[in-house]
Structures are given as structure tokens and as C-alpha cells.
């Protein structure tokens, strides 16, 4: 599907979604509460069929956090980017690990690096960082570690 068709289709599914164009792919902004139901529709709708979550990450904008999901369809070969703004002091969003299995690992990475709490995640623990790092989120912009961090 082309961006225009995708836009029309997604507006049909979620009227509150806003769009950004100009980049390589269509960007869709959604509220955290709307994300899980939309994710299930994106995955299961036969004309959309976004079955491949190829990138899941987070960006710290100092005032808020933004979750970024890159989705692709192996059947239709179209791509979209979903973005969701989170409160920086209490970042919470529903997990999509039931929809795309790969999200389980990626969400654990985002949890430890940014401190985003994924609700209903089956196994939300530290993955890369060693024990005792809970609460310190290295990829946030205000993270400081005077001993181990090399600044150039």
C-alpha cells in the first residue's frame, strides 16, 4: 500500500492518530493507551499485515520519552513507523510482546536503558546490564558515570 492508502486505513482504525510525512516512511503518532489495540489490528488486518517488527527503540528528548516502532509487512512490503510519547517521570506503555515475539527482548533492553515500564510484559528484567543497575538508565541524556564513562 502507498502512504496515502495506509493513512486512510489507519485513520479508520484509530481516528486519534496523527501523521507525519516527509521522511522515508509514514510516521504515526499514537497515545500510549491506544497502542496495544492498534498493534493487534496492524498485525492481524489482512490488507495491512504488519508482521515484522524490525526495530523497537526509545529516544530521550529530555522533556519526554518517545517510543519508536518500525514495522514492515513480509507480504505487502510496506513499512510504517509508530511513535508514542511517554511521560519522562513515569514512562509506561503496554507491551506488544504478545503481538510480535521479538518485542520481548527489545522491550527488556529499552526497560533497562531508558526505564520504560512495559505493562504486562512476561519477563521484565535486566538483560544486558548486570545486577544492581535497576533505576539507573544509561541511555537517558542525564545519566552520568564519572568512573566508567569515557567522554571524547
Amino acid at each position, binding site marked *: 500500500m502507498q502512504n496515502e492508502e495506509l493513512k486512510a486505513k489507519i485513520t479508520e482504525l484509530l481516528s486519534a492518530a496523527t501523521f507525519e510525512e516527509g*521522511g522515508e516512511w509514514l510516521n504515526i503518532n499514537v497515545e500510549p493507551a491506544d497502542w496495544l489495540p492498534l498493534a493487534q489490528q496492524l498485525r492481524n488486518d489482512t490488507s495491512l499485515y504488519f508482521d515484522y517488527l*524490525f526495530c523497537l527503540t526509545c529516544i530521550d528528548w529530555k522533556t519526554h520519552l518517545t517510543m519508536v516502532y518500525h514495522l514492515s509487512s513480509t507480504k505487502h512490503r510496506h513499512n510504517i513507523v509508530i511513535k508514542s510519547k511517554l511521560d519522562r517521570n513515569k514512562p509506561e506503555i503496554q507491551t506488544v510482546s504478545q503481538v510480535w*515475539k521479538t518485542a520481548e527482548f*527489545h522491550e527488556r533492553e529499552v526497560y533497562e536503558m531508558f526505564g520504560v515500564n512495559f505493562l504486562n510484559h512476561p519477563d521484565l528484567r535486566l538483560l544486558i546490564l548486570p545486577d544492581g543497575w535497576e533505576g539507573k538508565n544509561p541511555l537517558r541524556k542525564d545519566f552520568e558515570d564519572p568512573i566508567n564513562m569515557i567522554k571524547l
Partner: protein
Amino acid sequence: MLEEVGTTTEGDLVINVGPQHPATHGVLHLVITLNGETIKKVEPHLGFIHRSIEKMCESLTYRQFIYVTSRMDYLSSHINNHACALCVEKGLQVEIPPRAQVIRVLMDELTRIASHELWWGAMAMDLGAFTPFFHAFREREGINDIMEETCGARLTMNYMVPGGVMQDLHPNFQKKVKEFLQLYKRKIHEYDELVTGNIIFQNRMKGIGYLSPEDAVSYGCSGPTARGSGVSSDIRKLYPYEIYDKLEFDEVLENGGDSFARYMIRIREMQQSVRIIEQLIDNIPEGDFQAKTKAVLKLPKGEFYTRVETARGELGVYIVSEGGTTPYRIKFRSPGFSNLSVLDHIARGSKLGDLVAMMGTLDLVIPDIDR
């Protein structure tokens, strides 16, 4: 983490594989729950070689950060550099000269052969066959020598820069590559004679670690791991970059979904890489090897994403720019990270002895997973 070892309340045995274990090829720690010899659960613990490359890149300029990325997937370092260079070029909107494009593709494919060689030798060694390792390294050495002459390094090349490549090809490059191809084509059948056709090897690989196409996509698998399950996922074909759309090569697919299918993909992929190199080696256009770019690179405000096919699968580079000389945020979607997440799924219900065969065919490179 050691206190996890012992017996669970259900009477299952919990054991550690790694962090120091020859079959993990790096520092990967797996906590395995066993019922007798049958695997009930595999839980990877990562981070033993985590350097937080993403954070490091935030304080490096667009010319500097590429050097760090060679240290992610060190067996595909050219392709990592390539992905980053492409992403920066996308932001700068620079057209790179045809000569640089051809050199890049040649280097990528040589790297792919070298990486698959090492995988083949190391995997056979994991399964108890020592000889293939030497056969694989004999050929890989030829590629390393070619790289050394042109790039000055044998493993972490840092040869691709925004705008093209760092320096021109060594005068011996074409001659050396042709010699290598000649030797390689004479030797490649030895791989099948030594390993592929071996009945003991086949019995250890066939039907082991089955991954269905739906699960391969859902777990975000890419590269040979996904193609072994029949999922078309070659970025070179689906979203062509550089000159891949003008080249003749096949996307290798197998439908078995087991370890043997993933093994065959890589063996056949090496031959496709040879095909690509043969098409290009006599047709390297004359001209500049680097486009003219400013000394200090500044990407416009925005987001840039590139996808390339490394030897292990899809590498994504996601740069968020605020208009400065350094990226605001950079994310590397590494193929190994997603491919590892499927290990627990495919290992459940198999015997402990088969785990090594499964890990071997996922072709895990730990620095690529930890980043």
C-alpha cells in the same frame, strides 16, 4: 547468577553454559533448565561485552562514529561501516561515485565469504570435526591478505567513510582477487565432501531446531536464519542499495526450517557472493573513489534509517539528528540480537547435545548482540 545453578522445585536441573564456553564463541551466558537430557528452557544472559556503543556514538562526530561500529559485528566490519556511511549519506544527500559503489559491493561480498568461512569452520569444530576449521581458515586467509593490502587492517577495516571509501584500491587488488577466486572455486567442493555429505553430520543437523516461517518473522529473525525457514528477507533484493539491483544473483531460500537448512543457506550464499564478485572484478569503473564532502559533517534535523544485509542478517542504523555534528540518538538494530531471541523457542524439547548445533547455525557473534 551462580546461585541459579542447582535443582528447581520441580526437580529439574539448572546448568550454566558460558560465559566462557568454546561453543558460545564469545562471552554469552546461557542458563539452561533440564529435565534429564531434555531442554525445558534456555535463558540468555547478555552484556559481558557490552560497551554501550550507542551512547558512545552520541558524543562522536559523523566521521568518527563509524570506527566504533567495526567493533560490533567484527566479522562483517565492512558491512557495518557501509550501513553507517549509507545512513550519513542519506542525511547529507550525497551521490557517491560509481567507482566507490563497486568497491563497496566487492568488499561487502568478500567479507560475506570470509564471515561464512569462519562460521563454517567454527561450527564444524563445535560438532567435533577439527579439520574443516583449517580448510576454512586457509581460504579466509586469502581474503584477509587482500583486505590488508587495500585497507591496512585484517579485521576491523574502517574503510568505508561518508562519501565513498577511504583510499583507492591497491594496484594488486584485481590480480589478488582473481587468484583467490580461482583457488576458492577449486576448493569449494571440499566443503561438501568433508562436511555436508557426511552422514554423521547430517544426522546431527536434520530435524534439529525447527523454526516455522511464522515464528521466524515474529521473532524478528533475518538473514540466513530466516531464509532457512523459507522467509524471503534479503535486503539486497528487497530494498536494494548501491548497485545490488543491477547485479545478477539469487536470493538463496530453503524450506526445511531446521539446522541443516540454515547450514545449506550459508554454503550456497558463498557461491552467490562469488558470482557477484566475478561480475564486478573486471568492471571497476575509473574515477573518484570518494565524493567531495565538507570537512565537518552536519546532518539536517530529522531521522534517517538504513537497512543493509550483513553476513548474519538485517542491520539497521537509525540516526536521529538535531542538526549538529553528532547524532542525538543512534540505534543499531543488530541481526544477532533478534536471532538469539529465538534460541529458547527452537531449543525447547531438544536434547542438550543438540544445543550446540542450533547455536552454530544461528551464527551468533556476541559483540554484535551486546553492542
